[in-house]
């Protein structure tokens, strides 16, 4: 009896395997024949990530040159030229911020360059700096004491440098006039935060040369793997967009109380443009920039074409709605709340798709912990 049972089982197994073998054969092998993840990652590294970092480095360099010009001759013409360069620089940063893994994570680029207050921090904490706040108090005290260490890994240090500090020092209210007071220290601080930015960007850039090899050869999907990192950072960037960038200053966490000064790049006043650039670059990551070697194509190879199309369409919906939100965002939050609300809703839909369907389909994990099936 036992023997016949074994035989039976084997027959069932063989039949099943056989049926599906021939079925996949009939479907036309391509569908089943796998996907070259290394080619996909090579495409990401060489066509998308590395050029974006190179461009960021160039923009930091030209920003630094113009900053020095401004600091030598402080007038509105030079300030305006610097502001244009700054906007280009920050927009370029929006194109790399989703690569917050590998060299960028090691350098803590995101917190030192463009601190968003942390997703795990209560935005409504009274009297505390949250979101993209500008910490004029710490910055001014750093300037007057001349005693500061920008490498410290603490919130007050994050808020005292990067784009928020650049906004305040170069483009804040009466920015030029403030240089008349304690000029030496103020100029030094201004130069120091620009140099700090440049040092970080240079480091990430040069580290990517070595990291590239690891990046393209690791086709796993666990935590810390390139594919896992890209998907998890898509979700993370959308969380930032939904929270600190749009939703929280809009009052989503605070019963509709708006925080106009907590928007990104408050003084430069291009928060919405930054949000748009951020979502466009996320779409570029998701689709591999239409190269045929993107996450969308990987999903298609897994017979998830509908999902790939659905998510791409949702990216477009978010882009359209964000483009309808005019700058300065700080004013739009109260002037045209309906437009912000619409964009917010579409962002949440996109975030949901990435966190559920896309994460599921690609088998990406979010934590190292043992797991015996969800």
């Amino acid at each position, binding site marked *: 009896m036992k023997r016949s049972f074994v035989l039976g089982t084997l027959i069932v197994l063989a039949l099943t395997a056989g049926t599906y073998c021939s079925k996949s054969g009939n479907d036309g092998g391509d569908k089943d024949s796998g996907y070259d993840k290394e080619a996909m990652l090579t495409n990401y590294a060489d066509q998308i990530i590395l050029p974006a970092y190179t461009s960021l480095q160039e923009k930091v360099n030209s920003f630094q040159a113009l900053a020095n010009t401004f600091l030598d001759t402080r007038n509105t013409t030079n300030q305006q030229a610097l502001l244009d360069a700054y906007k280009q620089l920050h927009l370029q940063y929006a194109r790399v911020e989703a690569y917050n893994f590998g060299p960028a994570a090691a350098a803590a680029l995101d917190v030192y360059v463009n601190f968003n207050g942390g997703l795990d921090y209560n935005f409504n904490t009274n009297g505390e700096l949250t979101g993209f706040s500008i910490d004029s108090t710490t910055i001014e005290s750093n300037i007057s004491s001349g005693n500061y260490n920008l490498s410290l890994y603490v919130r007050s240090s994050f808020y005292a440098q990067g784009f928020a500090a650049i906004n305040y020092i170069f483009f804040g209210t009466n920015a030029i006039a403030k240089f008349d007071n304690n000029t030496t220290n103020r100029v030094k601080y201004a130069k120091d935060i620009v140099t700090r930015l440049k040092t970080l960007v240079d480091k990430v850039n040069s580290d990517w040369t070595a990291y590239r090899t690891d990046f393209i050869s690791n086709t796993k999907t666990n935590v810390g793997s390139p594919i896992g990192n890209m998907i998890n950072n898509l979700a993370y960037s959308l969380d930032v967009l939904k929270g600190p960038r749009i939703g929280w200053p809009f009052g989503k966490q605070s*019963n509709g109380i708006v925080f106009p000064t907590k928007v990104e790049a408050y003084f430069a006043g291009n928060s919405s443009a930054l949000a748009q650039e951020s979502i466009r670059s996320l779409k570029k990551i998701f689709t591999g920039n239409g190269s045929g070697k993107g996450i969308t194509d990987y999903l298609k190879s897994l017979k998830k074409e509908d999902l790939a199309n659905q998510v791409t369409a949702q990216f477009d919906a978010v882009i359209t709605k964000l483009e309808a939100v005019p700058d300065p965002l700080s004013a739009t939050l109260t002037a045209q709340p309906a437009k912000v609300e619409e964009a917010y809703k579409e962002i949440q839909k996109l975030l949901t798709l990435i966190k559920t369907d896309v994460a599921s389909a690609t*088998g990406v994990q979010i934590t*190292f*912990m043992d797991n015996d*099936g969800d």
Partner: protein
Amino acid sequence: MMVINRQAWEKPVSIAPLITFRIAFGLLMFFSTLRFWWRGWVDTVYVSPSFHFTYWGFDWVQPLGKPGMYLIFSIIALSALMIAAGLFYRLAAVLFFICFTYVELIDVTTYLNHYYFISLVAFLMIWLPASRLYSIDVLLKPGSKRQYVPAWTVGVLRFQIAVVYFFAGLAKLNTDWLINAQPMKTWLPAKSHIPFVGEWLYKEWVAYLFSWFGAVYDLFIVFFLLNKRTRIWAYCFVLIFHIATAIFFPGIGLFPYVMIVSSLIFFSGTFHERLLSLLPAKKMSDGLSATYTFTRKKWLYGIMIVYVFLQCIIPFRFLLYPDLLFWNEEGYRFSWRVMLMEKAGAAYFTVKDKTGKQYYEVNNAEFLTPLQEKMMSTQPDMILKYAHFLANTYEKRGIAQPQVFGEVYVTLNGAGSRLFIDSSVNLAAQSFSWKHYNWILPYKTKK
């Protein structure tokens, strides 16, 4: 499943299988605790989170803070070593069981079937005379040596392993697993980096092969392990199956090794005697060929009968609930459902005051770790627990009689994400219950 025949039950058999089991289990638990510690999980799971998903009725089980948790893990590691060495065995087994189970009860987030298995086995070990040979205890007290034990002491461990496999197999008999090869079809292509077989993992028939082989293996392996003639081959399958699982799904952790080691219990007394004779421990094994006899038999047999009965019915409790088990997960835990589904969710909560005029969207990351948020997003009882926690928290922040609403989306086995619970229900007003939660939306409703 088991013949309850008192004479067969009490028949003296070699103590050797129990001894091997004790040593292997103790060592494995020791290394498993070190691994957990080494990876920093004591901190990330039991120290840093500000909120824990306690089990319903076990809200009093709370973590002990950093020094306390490290002390507990030290006790677990030490008692595991004492179990392996057979030093103050009963005390060690009790300590291990209490400390390990305490840790598991702190947070539902980290529930794993093999942690449950370890708790159960540790409970059984308390009662078993597994240190009556090859132990420091018998060196200290040579008169306590025993060569034979009642058959049921080995049998109950075999039963426990049989329960794990058999129910794991039964759980695989569902449409998604057998007909759609889900979630294998989703998981395997993500493993294409594995040498040699990687390219094959995109092929559908491979997913079917994995699914069907897994189901057949789980359902029948115990019968082949029990049969003397097939045992050695069956154990080869145990090795192949679990090593493959460890390679393909490293995220599963120690489960494969737990099963590989535990399944040794099916081998005969003679086999284990030969195995143990390899140990350089003559002093610990020589002696009279005495049989261990239990005092207070009636009492103990009572416990064991209740235990066996509960083990047989608990996995079936899902039958008492409506709709799809994988969707509502009512009766899902403690039932040996391992690697059965791919589920992911996104949960957004809004707190409103009693008038509904004030509203506050919740930032989950403020309260939960990424792992907690992930687990909560797909499991209704955790959603409810979290909603109650939110109501408390926001009440402290000054909102009178807060109402909590959840907009939760879940995808199951590759089917498109859809609303999981009724987002118009005030979760703060829903109570915990053994009954079905009516606020879970039926699976069929497409969004």
